[in-house]
């Protein structure tokens, strides 16, 4: 694989942007809380991929890998706590629809 750094960036960055757009579009249009979490996951994957590509291009893989490991571990806790909150909301309201969570409505 004899590609220059610029060629690698040109290949990867459009796909990273596509992943981010898919995630944001999904979060904005869905009303299901679990689906919102799925969208968040897609955006995180785009971030991870972009960090790895940046590390590869700047020849600094060790730093990129350590950053990705930190991101992955924090992502797991975010998902675990969010899943706990979703189950709790389901027990309270009987649905996972965002429009049903109106307890604090003014």
């Amino acid at each position: 694989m004899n590609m220059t750094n610029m060629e690698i960036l040109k290949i990867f960055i459009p796909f990273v942007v596509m992943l981010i757009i898919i995630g944001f579009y999904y979060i904005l249009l869905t009303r299901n809380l679990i689906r919102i979490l799925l969208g968040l996951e897609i955006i995180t994957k785009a971030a991870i991929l972009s960090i790895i590509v940046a590390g590869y291009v700047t020849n600094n893989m060790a730093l990129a890998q350590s950053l990705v490991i930190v991101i992955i571990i924090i992502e797991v806790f975010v998902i675990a706590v969010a899943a706990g909150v979703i189950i709790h909301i389901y027990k309270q309201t009987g649905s996972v629809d965002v429009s049903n969570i109106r307890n604090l409505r003014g």
Partner: protein
Amino acid sequence: MLLIILIVTALMVVFSSRMLIGAISLALTSIIITILMFKLNSPLAAVFELSICAGLITVIFITTISFVKPSTEDELIEFRKLRFKKYIYLPFLVAVAGYLVSVAIKPISLKLPEIIQETNVRNVLWDLRQVDLLGQAIVLLIGVFGIVVLFKEGRKK
């Protein structure tokens, strides 16, 4: 090729009518990112991605979905009707955005200040980025605390 499959699996997450299929498609996305990481010379992060993102997070999602009441057939039919209305523009939007970004990228000089020239991941993680590890430990404690509080309250009721 792998990148195109990556986008297709991400679109599968969006278009899946059942959330279980969406969670499994997300695991597929993780697996493809793992292969890309191996190709980009970062095996340690790839192992983390495969074991945690494709394994643990999928398990968490499936557990959450199984806790929640499954949607009825009517809801599924309604969702199938609505999803094409909602998400029909997404593939076009994604394709246009990808094309625009690939056109807009201009050559830049990639000479960054060389701050860290360590090649061993373990040295970077344990010696140079100790604050990150401290942050991880704090996040771990807060996460465990949050989950304990949530489920304790649920048990009382």
